[in-house]
């Protein structure tokens, strides 16, 4: 933590907050629409719809149970992973750090919904004809982008550079 100066901390905080707020704006907009019309099912383009569903589980709707205990355990695991990512941000530098910031911003967006609404609203429905991809949200986009960047950095970083960074 001491290695990071105040300017860098502020920049990282702004990036995370920008991602978090972008996600929140979209979610609030969709939820307002759902309040007014009871349901959100909007045709945008031939390949993209807005369709609101609530996810209580993790990725791909896995572990979606009505049991409160399981839900709390999952939320706890997600919170721990988010803290670990925060620690990794402090330890890493450059491209890897920015990738982790994207993951953290998205993670906080979904974690907020899990605590506030007890479920995460998903509304982006990509499809080709009758084949629908999993319905996701803006936070998921940032997490995916961050994970892809992180894997890319991990593969193409040289081993000695990796040792130095860690």
């Amino acid at each position, binding site marked *: 933590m001491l290695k990071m100066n105040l300017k860098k901390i502020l920049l990282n905080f702004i990036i995370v907050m920008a991602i978090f707020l972008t996600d929140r704006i979209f979610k609030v907009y969709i939820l307002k629409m759902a309040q007014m019309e009871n349901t959100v099912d909007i045709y945008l383009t031939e390949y993209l719809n807005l369709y609101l569903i609530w996810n209580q589980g993790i990725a791909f709707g896995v572990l979606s149970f009505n049991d409160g205990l399981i839900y709390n355990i999952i939320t706890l695991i*997600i919170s721990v992973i*988010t803290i670990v990512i925060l620690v990794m941000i402090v330890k890493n530098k450059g491209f890897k750090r920015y990738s982790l910031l994207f993951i953290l911003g998205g993670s906080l967006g979904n974690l907020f919904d899990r605590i506030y609404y007890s479920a995460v609203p998903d509304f982006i429905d990509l499809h080709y004809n009758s084949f629908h991809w999993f319905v996701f949200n803006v936070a998921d986009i940032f997490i995916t982008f961050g994970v892809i960047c992180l894997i890319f950095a991990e593969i193409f970083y040289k081993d000695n550079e990796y040792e130095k960074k860690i």
Partner: protein
Amino acid sequence: MKKKFKFILIISISAIFLYSCGSVKDGLTDNKRTNADEFLVEKKNPLVKPPKFSELPKPESSTLKGLSEELTVVNIEDQLKKEISLNKNSKNDQTVNKSIEESILEKINTN
């Protein structure tokens, strides 16, 4: 190399927890598309005259004449006059001096 693989694996597993994609049931099934989508309805062509419009037979005037006759029969004033004349015939001695209004009221009361 092992470290890299391990790191990617950990990140991927962690990401599964952080993601919040919709369930397979909601996302992949076609249930939600059973309702009609008004945006997918094909646009109708503009109204145009048929190719042999001038050759089409003209509507017959006799049918129109008959229709107009029927309409003239259904005239409230005539009906009232008929009713009054009927009343006059049946109750000639009583209703001679009665006004139209009185005769109508009487008719209503009888019904």
